[in-house]
């Protein structure tokens, strides 16, 4: 057991802290796609090597040598300073790692740099009305005609489709094959003729996701990632990345600290909420859960640095535990604020621009999205604990 990172890393941490102190004024409160201030911040972070850190410079990344500890220090310091880590989104968090792993050289050259810069925004077209948890039953079809795929069908719950320039999606190219083997992973421009986008309002009352309809949409056959029929495998390369990105324990820690501050400020009949035993106990329970996930994350990290350490179960529980924890944490903040915690939209008593109510609902969305909690539990039980699969499903 050695939990020190070493002198080189202490120096690096000091460097990150100095950067944050000097530059945080330029950071947007939340990095948003297509927002000029966010794009400028992103460029600054790439130049500094704090985002897109290990992606080769030839593809627009920072081109630093892989060093998990340095990446972690950056994440820790940005979270504790409450400063944006730059642009996220499904292009950067999912498509870029996919192309790095299984894309062609031409695809990497074309897509990675503009995506990292924030000039090319992506959406993820996986789910369909009939294919959510059972994603492999998706039916949107792509049939080869000359040099093109011709796509027909419908996607749903497509986050950011309305602002995206491109979509990466799963379509059925081999209707005769068993369901997991008939899927391909395609890239397509959102302004291709035949695509219709209809916004969906979600429970936060935002229009963040959409239905996307395809009618005879023609996409060059070169825009496939991996081989025909390999789409399921390609998608699985990065599913893990998505699940990790939905439940960052450093972000939970920053949120916990903000909540503690609110509890020191808010009063009820003149008493501070932090002095109320019932609320204090709830805060401490959540703090314990945040700590468990932080140290679990450290263990997962360690297993990547040291051969022979197995943290697969530790990693498998992260999406389930992380999203449930955040939902609970945000809920406590609302209870702490009481009636003021109901404030929304234009309400003058809104705290932090309504982020607590928003996140309380949004994390319920993330409990569902990216593989529901029930599906996560199935995975933990079957792949993690080796319990027998439900018999009918095994053959479905």
């Amino acid at each position: 057991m050695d939990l020190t990172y070493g002198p080189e890393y202490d120096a690096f941490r000091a460097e990150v802290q100095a950067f944050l102190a000097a530059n945080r004024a330029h950071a947007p409160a939340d990095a948003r796609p297509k927002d000029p201030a966010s794009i400028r911040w992103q460029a600054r972070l790439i130049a500094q090597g704090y985002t897109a850190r290990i992606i080769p410079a030839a593809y627009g990344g920072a081109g630093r040598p892989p060093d998990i500890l340095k990446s972690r220090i950056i994440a820790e310091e940005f979270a504790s300073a409450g400063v944006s880590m730059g642009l996220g989104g499904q292009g950067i968090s999912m498509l870029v790692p996919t192309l790095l792993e299984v894309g062609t050289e031409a695809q990497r050259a074309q897509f990675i740099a503009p995506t990292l810069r924030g000039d090319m925004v992506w959406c993820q077209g996986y789910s369909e009305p009939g294919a959510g948890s059972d994603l492999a039953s998706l039916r949107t079809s792509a049939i080869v005609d000359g040099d093109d795929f011709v796509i027909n069908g419908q996607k749903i719950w497509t986050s950011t489709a309305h602002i995206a320039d491109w979509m990466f999606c799963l379509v059925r190219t081999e209707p005769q094959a068993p369901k997991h083997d008939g899927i391909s992973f395609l890239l397509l421009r959102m302004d291709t003729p035949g695509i219709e986008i209809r916004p969906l309002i979600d429970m936060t009352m935002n229009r963040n996701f959409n239905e996307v309809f395809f009618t005879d949409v023609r996409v060059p056959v070169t825009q496939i990632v991996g081989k025909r029929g390999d789409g399921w495998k390609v998608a699985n390369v990065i599913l893990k990345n998505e699940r990790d990105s939905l439940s960052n324990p450093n972000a939970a820690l920053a949120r916990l600290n903000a909540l503690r501050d609110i509890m020191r400020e808010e009063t009820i009949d003149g008493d501070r909420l932090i002095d109320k035993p019932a609320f204090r106990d709830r805060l401490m329970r959540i703090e314990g859960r945040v700590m468990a996930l932080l140290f679990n994350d450290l263990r997962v990290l360690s297993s990547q640095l040291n051969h022979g350490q197995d943290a697969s179960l530790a990693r498998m529980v992260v999406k389930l535990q992380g999203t449930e924890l955040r939902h609970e944490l945000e809920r406590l903040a609302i209870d702490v604020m009481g009636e003021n915690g109901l404030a929304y939209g234009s309400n003058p008593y809104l705290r932090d621009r309504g982020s607590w109510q928003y996140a309380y609902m949004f994390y319920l969305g993330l409990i569902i999205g990216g593989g529901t909690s029930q599906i996560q539990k199935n995975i933990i039980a079957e792949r993690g604990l080796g319990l027998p699969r439900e018999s009918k499903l095994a053959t479905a």
Partner: protein
Amino acid sequence: MEFGLSAEQRLLTDSVVRYLRDLAPLSRVRQIADGGRADDLIAGITELGLPALLIEDTHGGVGLTALDACLVAEVLGYHVAPVPFVANAVIAPTALRLAGSPTQQRAYLPKIAAGEMIFGAGLSSRTGARAGTGVHVRNGRLSGATRFVLDFAADAYIIADSDAGLHIVMADAAGLERRALETIDRTRPIGELIFTDTPAEPLPNAAGAFATILALGRAALAADTLGAAQYMLDQAVDYAKQRHQFGRPIGSFQAVKHMCAEMAANLEPTRAFMWYAGNSFAALPDEAPRLASHFKAHISEVGTFVAKTATEVHGGMGFTDLVGLHYWFKRIGFNRQMLGSPERLREDVSG
């Protein structure tokens, strides 16, 4: 012994159910939530006798009981009905009956019963006052602020001051500033009242009656949560039967079955709790405030669990506006904080 509802009570709730099912479907609720007017629905429930429920027939009311008011509130919650009730039909008539003078009763109760006046209620200075709120009386006039006023779109308000007093304040009183407050629950308008030497009419017998008035308001809000949670459970069960994944109804997965069963197992006992607590206002008046507090604290926790779980059963559909489930989710969230949060209520009853 017989612990159950009477035929009259079932008739009463059936009539409200039928009315709301026909005239306040989700499409209409959405329209009102988006700023449309609810006048016809308010007229409709007035015709059904809802504001008159707790008012004696000598004042033009129907003279029913606290339990009846809870049963109606449950139906309103089930339909997320965007109409005034808890302040106008429960708190105000009870305050006037128990704390008002005969003159005040004659002046206001018939108007409430007939729908000629709507009352809001601002009790927040007595239910856990937040910074910046509190109402003080000087020479019979009010100063300060009360927030989270229920049934805000009203002609007059019942206001609790920070001591033990209750007052009637007219909506157009001099020195009264009214500020609507947007919340997550758009089916019920709330707002803030700011008083600057505002003329008010005190209710002479407030001191001894306040606990019961507040308790009845709490019981009604809690009943609203029960109704809203029951709706969410019913929807989840229906959806679990219809929605297929992996070639079978999702309700055939034990995970989904257990989510539904757990919701039912938590929710079902709250119905008897509501009957008992509602009935206690007549049968065991001394115990009613304690029962109402426990009922509201408990149903708030159950409601929070059901709201989350029923949404999860719907998958992505639960998170969107398409099936509108979030109106119920938010109504449950609203009721949880109003007139005393669970922590506050448990603190009250533990003393």
